[in-house]
């Protein structure tokens, strides 16, 4: 039986891969047993990837040139 408040507490550190082996096992067990939390875990995982992709904005070429021009005179 899944205790969802425990699961939620473990969710972020689980996503960041900073749990101890025992805690990670506990999180995995929770997720395997609880569809509600499992769907939320997948959503969080996707969201994090999406934030990374959505935030990516290529550097303007003009800025690249201006940065190169800042190099000290040789």
């Amino acid at each position: 039986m899944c205790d969802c408040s425990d699961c939620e507490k473990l969710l972020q550190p689980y996503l960041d891969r900073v749990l101890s082996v025992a805690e990670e096992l506990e999180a995995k067990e929770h997720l395997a047993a609880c569809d509600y939390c499992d769907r939320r875990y997948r959503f969080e995982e996707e969201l994090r990837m999406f934030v990374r992709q959505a935030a990516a904005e290529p550097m303007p070429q003009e800025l690249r040139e201006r940065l190169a021009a800042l190099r000290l005179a040789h």
Partner: protein
Amino acid sequence: MSETRPETDARRIAAEARDRVRFEEDALALSDQVYRVARHLVGSREEAEDLMQEAYARAFRSWRSFTPGTNLRAWLLRILTNLNIDRGRRLQRTPDMQPLEAGDYYLVDKLEETGGPIAHEERVDQRLSQDNIVAALSAVPHDFRDVVVLVDIGDFTYQDAAQILDIPVGTVMSRLHRGRRILKAQLAEEAVV
């Protein structure tokens, strides 16, 4: 007057010039990655470009203080975040908002309330747009946003983020957690309204 040996001096000068050129090339090669982070530390593209130029000018001037073999990307970001704080943008731009107290599941719960249950195979971009993310991110108060941007967009470790911002690792973790919650609360507002 001390006797100098022109050949040794010439060799030393040449070696130093070589080190400097290598440093500059390495720093420029990282500029795309630095810009990715800079772009979201401040509110606009123009500010990000100004900040990048200031940071690179300072980095090139103080290249000798970089220790070869250590993390150059983190070193550059440290210069950039310090400049950002020095310029007082933090004070000017921090929105006057009370961070919403929301749980980790706040966003997904909210989306389900309005659009029905999230299916197993459903992708996040079916519910949220890129504009939603960018707008929500810029509405997160700076102290929290800096950490979220460094870790979630810049892919820095907690330790690197702590060094860059000169705060303890525990503070990075708590701000990250809070910052992500605020981001999700903002996204819920953006996406659901």
